[in-house]
């Protein structure tokens, strides 16, 4: 604890205040929140503070392909700290078509310069799906197809982050019949990229991923679909504030009915929480209030982070529960009970019982002998003779 505090003291807060326009208190708050979103151990916030304080800002190149810019828009609305400060001051955003002041050849020149200067060190963030059909002619920037641009930028990138469902696995553009042959960045590049699916994704998951990279010079742990485990390790259903209603069988049946007004479970309305991996119920969305996420506002989850759910399954369709695979605390059809008596056990028991019975019989016989009746004693030999 002391070490942490000392480390924090060695950070030049005045410089940070000048650069980020945030007080020491706000800055440390941001570091702590990020550390907890990432699920890091206590003390990590100090390391994060140290990493961000370092003047060397990593270069970030942000590409836009087949998308709606919703990911950028959601990112711009994060406010602890305001994200444009993070994007512009903590990292060095060298290319971003929406936020760029430059245009045309100037912008493309900046991208090439950044790639040259930071070869092998820059972060590549991809927003939007990449059309591959007909040599990728359906999306071009500055005369270059999306496929070529992505491959060119990814070649020397330290890491590739796919933000949003489109960049992660194709999203809306890849929905059947997929006329442009849209694919996700990972599929086009044929390598592991960090996928941050969502429509739009939670901005704090991107901030946390970037800050994790800044702090540890490494990407966070990923699941089999390339999603950071800290954000996509659990189902929405597991942390949902309405879970109690689900377990008790209290469901809203239609929008505005009694159950809906009382805040009951939205499963029957098609909530995809039981099959969608995301941390929405934990970190919420949009920084508006303590219920600011779809389910909190009364709308069922549409599974925007999950491939094969959003844009594929109808919003009203029932979700398939994923928490029960494998069912850990269900009773089995036939609960294990003791087995019946085995032959050996029965034989052993019979032997013991036989010995006991024999012993008792002998005892009884001897008892008779010790306290004999004169007549009976005499009668015994006679009986034998008679037999």
């Amino acid at each position: 604890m002391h070490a942490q505090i000392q480390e924090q003291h060695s950070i030049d807060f005045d410089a940070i205040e000048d650069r980020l326009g945030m007080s020491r208190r706000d800055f440390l708050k941001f570091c702590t929140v990020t550390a907890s979103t990432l699920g890091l151990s206590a003390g990590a916030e100090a390391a994060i503070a140290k990493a961000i304080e370092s003047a060397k800002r990593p270069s970030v190149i942000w590409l836009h392909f087949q998308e709606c810019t919703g990911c950028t828009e959601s990112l711009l609305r994060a406010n602890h700290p305001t994200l444009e400060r993070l994007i512009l001051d903590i990292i060095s955003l060298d290319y971003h078509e929406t936020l760029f002041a430059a245009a045309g050849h100037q912008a493309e020149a900046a991208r090439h310069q950044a790639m040259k200067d930071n070869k092998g060190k820059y972060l590549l963030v991809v927003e939007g799906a990449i059309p591959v059909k007909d040599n990728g002619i359906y999306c071009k920037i500055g005369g270059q197809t999306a496929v070529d641009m992505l491959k060119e930028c990814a070649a020397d990138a330290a890491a590739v982050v796919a933000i949003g469902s489109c960049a992660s696995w194709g999203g809306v553009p890849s929905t059947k019949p997929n006329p442009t042959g849209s694919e996700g960045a990972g599929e086009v590049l044929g390598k592991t990229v960090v996928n941050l699916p969502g429509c739009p994704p939670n901005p704090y998951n991107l901030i946390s991923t970037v800050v994790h990279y800044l702090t540890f010079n490494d990407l966070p742990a990923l699941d089999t679909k390339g999603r950071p485990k800290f954000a996509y390790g659990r189902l929405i259903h597991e942390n949902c504030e309405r879970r109690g209603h689900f377990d008790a069988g209290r469901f809203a049946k239609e929008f505005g009915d009694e159950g809906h007004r009382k805040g009951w479970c939205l499963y029957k309305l098609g909530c995809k929480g039981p099959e969608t991996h995301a941390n929405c119920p934990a970190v919420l969305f949009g920084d508006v209030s303590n219920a600011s996420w779809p389910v909190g506002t009364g709308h069922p989850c549409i599974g925007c982070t999950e491939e094969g759910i959003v844009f594929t399954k109808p919003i009203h369709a029932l979700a398939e529960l994923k928490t029960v695979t494998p069912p850990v605390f269900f009773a089995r059809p036939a609960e294990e009970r003791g087995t019946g008596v085995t032959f050996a056990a029965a034989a052993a028991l019979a032997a013991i019982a036989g010995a006991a019975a024999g012993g008792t019989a002998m005892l009884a016989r001897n008892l008779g002998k010790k306290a004999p009746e004169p007549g009976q004693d005499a009668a015994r030999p006679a009986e034998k003779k008679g037999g």
Partner: protein
Amino acid sequence: MGMDRRNFLKAAAGGTLAATCAAPVEAREKREMPQGAVGLLFDGTLCIGCRACMSACKAENDLAPEFNEIEGSTYWDAPLDISGHTINIIKAYVGGDSDEKDTLDGYAFTKLSCFHCVDASCVSCCPVGAMTKDSVSGIVSHSKDACIGCRYCVAACPFGVPRFTYDQTFPYIAKCQLCKHRMAEGKYAACAEVCPTGATLYGPVKELKKEIARRKALTPGTETEFPRGHIGSSDTFVGPVAKYIDHVWGEKEIGGTQVLHLSAVPFDKLDKKPLPDVAPANVSESLQGRIYHGMIAPIAFLGALVLVAKRSAKALGEAGEPDHTQAGDRKGE
């Protein structure tokens, strides 16, 4: 010496004859489902394992939770089987990697609660008529006041449904009575009412059988509309049709039941072992009907016994102490 060999065999043969032939009664007729029989359809392929039916059942029937230790925690109601405090349970079959639902390598859900047999063993064996089957709805229920706690029903039920509350000072029998008490309020079975997927569906058995036929006729993999709650409900949803096995549990088992199960995995995996089509109650009642018909056989048997006893007494003489006489006789020999 007692009765001689010849006489003994004569009496024995007479008794047997009386017991078997004296009452040439036909086997008791097969019981038919009451006209207004109501029941449940449990479609295991629709069950998602939320167990809302279990909590609703406990709430509606005022049953206590069972705090079994599950994964080191004892905070949850986690019954391992139906019991005096749990009359409805969802159980899970787990095989292989338990990844895919409704496959032998995967997992499947099943429900255990009273099946409300057409010819119920528990009703047949109850010595005081505490266990009864409603002549209209066919619901098998029991009266706590009439029950003497003999637990014959516990032993008789082929499904192991009636349970005894051994942990109570004044124990009683507990079993599902299809929320009979709610029907007076115009409601129906709580487990079906809360089921979010219509896996447990309430309705007249005739209608349930029609629904089963409809589902089995559909092509697996296609989508269809499933009612939720009860047959004819306006609350429906569209979902995929599973590949049902060609067996409806409860359609023929022990003369038919009013609770029917559909499944995509064989029923023996769900601890629903093969049962004969004939109700055990029919067999036992037919047998007893023969033996006790007109009380002819029992009276004949008693007569034979009296005869044997009388002859033995005669052979021993009028003296009250046969042992001594015998001992004396032997001594004399």
